[in-house]
């Protein structure tokens, strides 16, 4: 790239919206190092009180399943409907379910 010899690496950002919730992927950004990435994430992705905790990870450090592997990786869970709460028929008048 002629414009920039070395672009700052890409980071993925995960924010915990409030206590009790998982960190959720909210987007990405560029930073020169991990510490700067956390600061950038705070400035870019929590301007509206969106979070109480931030994770950042370099995008090139993420290992992903590839589309070719989609079937063997995900098909086994496709038929295990019993893992899902809607599988179970509960009468409407049973509370706290």
């Amino acid at each position, binding site marked *: 790239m002629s414009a920039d010899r070395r672009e700052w690496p890409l980071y993925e950002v995960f924010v915990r919206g409030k206590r009790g919730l998982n960190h959720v992927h909210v987007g990405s950004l560029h930073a*020169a190092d991990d510490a*700067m990435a956390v600061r950038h994430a705070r400035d870019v992705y929590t301007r509206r009180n969106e979070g109480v905790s931030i994770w950042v990870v370099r995008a090139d450090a993420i290992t992903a399943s590839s589309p070719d592997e989609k079937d063997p990786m995900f098909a086994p869970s496709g038929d295990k409907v019993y893992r899902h709460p809607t599988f179970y028929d509960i009468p409407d008048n049973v509370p706290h379910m």
Partner: protein
Amino acid sequence: MTTTPVEPEALEAAFEATIARHDRIEPRDWMPDAYRRTLVRQMAQHAHSEIIGMQPEGAWIGRAPSLRRKAILLAKVQDEAGHGLYLYSACETLGVSRAELTDLLLTGRQKYSSIFNYPTLSYADVGTIGWLVDGAAICNQVPLCRTSYGPYGRAMIRICKEESFHQRQGYELLMTMMRGTDAQREMVQESVNRFWWPALMMFGPPDTDSPNSARSMAWGIKRNSNDELRQKFVDMTVPQAEALGVTLPDPDLRWNEERGHHDFGEPDWDELAAVIRGEGPCNAQRMAHRRAAHEDGAWVREAASAFAERAGAR
């Protein structure tokens, strides 16, 4: 894990089936090259528009006439930097880096929205941009929350949520000014006169003259045609203008009972073409500003990279 090779026809069929189900395409899915190219072009152009769009309003942050308005305007222009960033990130999921896209913008090989090549001449323009320009942008953007490419749709959801205050602050500023002095009311009307036609042009050329539209709609990248969105915007804006007490500068603008829509005059498409060609009032200024910021920052970006490398090596 062993994988069996998949035939190109099967990949294409799977892609088309996903589109047909109105499901989302995700970054690691197979997609036709033309789909990828169209997406990158559209998302990049959108990102560039957010970044260049910081300038016309940004010019008034220093002169905002109250501290409340200063805070609102600065927060708004800052949001635009964020929106550009989200959209560049969406492009990066397709393997095009922000540095490459910046280079394409600065060398004039990619465009941004023509509206930002018009000057801002009074503080009323801050209100008018919020009301008309952001209003038009919202018409364009809300359907894009359901666009077929996942990262683009997610960026648009975030952008639309954040933008919900942009249009309202603009309209509220104009309303407040209309309750002020005669000079302020004149300022508002003069500003609306200048921005009305350029705002209509933001939806792009008429459908009959929009070469890429059909395919983008078939792929679910675009959800509505230029003319549909333009009509929707006019119908939405007319009652808002009445409530505000301003006149929209179009003698042909009137309600058409039969169509159930407003009729309106034809924008000057030659003017749009000229602005897109780079002959608008502020094209050169906008590009020079962006280029200077990018070049002035080069030593900073290099210093941070060098520092990080050295720290990583320790």
